[in-house]
């Protein structure tokens, strides 16, 4: 019997990990990102072009479908493929904005919390716990209602949650690193606290930061899509994936593709990101080799 013997972690070289690089998700995500980036060139139609005469056209493989609208059109005759491509722009841009704003604040708070400790740590961590126990979607509902529906308000609402989860993870790592001998040595050698944080702690938590960042992008895209599905995300007529799934709901019985394709775009994107995130975790953080 060899049950569990495999659990003895095999030594893995970085080269070996690179060889097991997940080609499929990198290719998928790359294609999606490129399509989103060059949407005006790639998309067959402008995303907001209304053409009532060809409204609710089926995809090309259906009877009555045409190659002009590969994935069909919505109730205003807007091309679904084009809107899915432009939707990628919205989702990715939003997720990265949130990550940049919320993540950088979170890294700073986490480093301070872990390195300084004491009262500051307690205050930051209690606040972080409080924020993390707020129901994201519920809170977002409230704030979109107060701030008004826009790209910016979605970013501002989601950023604190990212800040909190970064602050917590980075703190844990910083705490471990702080007690290392080389940090004590640097201190003895007369390095300032700022220098120690920047030169000794930050580089050591960088791996963790990259891993959380990747996994959080996936989660962010899901939350953003849920918000636009509920009608409180980026406002129409912006082609957001969640919004398109919601638009298609009333035609579900007769025209499933209206909801199906934008949803598939979400699944493909988030799946690729999470897949890459899992792989990164194995490469950068062998201690926490989970899945």
């Amino acid at each position: 019997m060899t049950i569990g013997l495999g659990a003895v972690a095999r030594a893995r070289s970085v080269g070996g990990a690179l060889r097991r690089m997940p080609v499929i998700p990198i290719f998928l995500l790359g294609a999606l990102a490129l399509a989103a980036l060059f949407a005006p060139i790639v998309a067959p139609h402008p995303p907001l072009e209304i053409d009532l005469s060809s409204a609710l056209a089926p995809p090309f493989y259906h009877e009555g479908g045409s190659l002009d609208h590969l994935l069909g059109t919505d109730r205003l005759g807007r091309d679904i493929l084009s809107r899915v491509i432009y939707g990628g722009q919205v989702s990715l841009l939003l997720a990265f904005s949130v990550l940049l704003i919320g993540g950088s604040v979170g890294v700073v708070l986490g480093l301070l919390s872990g390195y300084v400790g004491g009262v500051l740590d307690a205050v930051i961590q209690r606040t972080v716990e409080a924020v993390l126990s707020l129901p994201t979607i519920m809170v977002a509902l409230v704030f979109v209602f107060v701030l008004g529906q826009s790209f910016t308000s979605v970013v501002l609402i989601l950023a604190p949650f990212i800040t909190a989860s970064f602050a917590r993870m980075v703190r844990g790592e910083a705490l471990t690193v702080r007690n290392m001998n080389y940090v004590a040595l640097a201190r003895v050698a007369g390095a300032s606290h700022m220098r120690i944080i920047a030169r000794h702690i930050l580089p050591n938590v960088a791996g963790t930061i990259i891993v959380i960042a990747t996994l959080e992008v996936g989660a962010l895209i899901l939350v953003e899509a849920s918000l636009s599905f509920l009608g409180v995300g980026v406002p129409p007529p912006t082609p957001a994936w969640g919004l398109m799934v919601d638009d298609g709901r009333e035609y579900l019985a007769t025209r499933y593709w209206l909801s199906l394709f934008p949803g598939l775009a979400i699944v493909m994107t988030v799946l690729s990101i999470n897949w890459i995130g899992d792989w990164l975790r194995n490469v950068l953080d062998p201690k926490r080799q989970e899945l």
Partner: protein
Amino acid sequence: MLRYIVGRLLQAILGILVITTLVFLLVRLTGDPSSILVSDFAPVEVQERIRERLGLDRPLHEQYAAYMGGLVRGDLGESFNGRPVLDILLQYLPATVSLAAVAMAIALLVAVPLGILSAVYRGTWIDTVARTVALFGQSVPSFWLAIVLVLIFAVVLDLLPVAYRSGPDSYVLPAVAMGWAAVAGIVRLIRSSMLDVLDSDYVRMARAKGMPPRTVVVKHALRSALIPVLTFTGLVLASFMNGSVVVESVFAWPGVGTMTLDAVSGRDFPVVQGAVIMIAVFFITINLLVDILYAFVDPRVRYR
């Protein structure tokens, strides 16, 4: 043990205090609620009267005292239609809680065996299946899954109801849509904690003694491996409360999520605020219970 429980209790109370204060401040920081309630064309006096009725004309610390005083007495204020917010919440709560319970049961039923098998047969096709399920669970948005499920099982196959809460069969689709996301987390957690335990000295010892593999896995490894899962269960329940908005909206389920969404579109601010506070308090309470339970299950916690 008592010291530990009291300590955790105080922490939980502190957490609730922070959250309610946070909600109070954020609501006021983001602007005057009365300006949302009143149309731009209404006379100034109307807005003044509303401000007075909501107590917004008083200084901030007085408003805070009144708000906290109300909370302590279980008074979440009144909805704009005159009903106490607490009554409204209690009316919608059972539908959400019962759905969450079914979803949780489904999630555990699928995830626990899958997580165990995945760890025991690490590196085999079973492991691959489990990891794929986990990856998909993390990546498929529940609202879309809900719609696809409706399309397949209600529209095409006509096996289950499309929406609304009626008999037991009406629970199936929403509970699966809700529980799905939790499966990913639980499978991952059980797998990694099983792998840790399977690698521990006492499990190796049990094996060396020649115990049958099944006994080693079930009696020795699983018991300790399930402890972290306990913590996670609290998080999952909280995430169900959050996910309820989305899933309930797809199935027109008469629960807290639908209620909140209606309150948002009807601009019934006290109800929305009450819902957020209730869910946050629920979350903290669950975590408190989990931590206390943890101390009973894992004696090491008590002496930390």
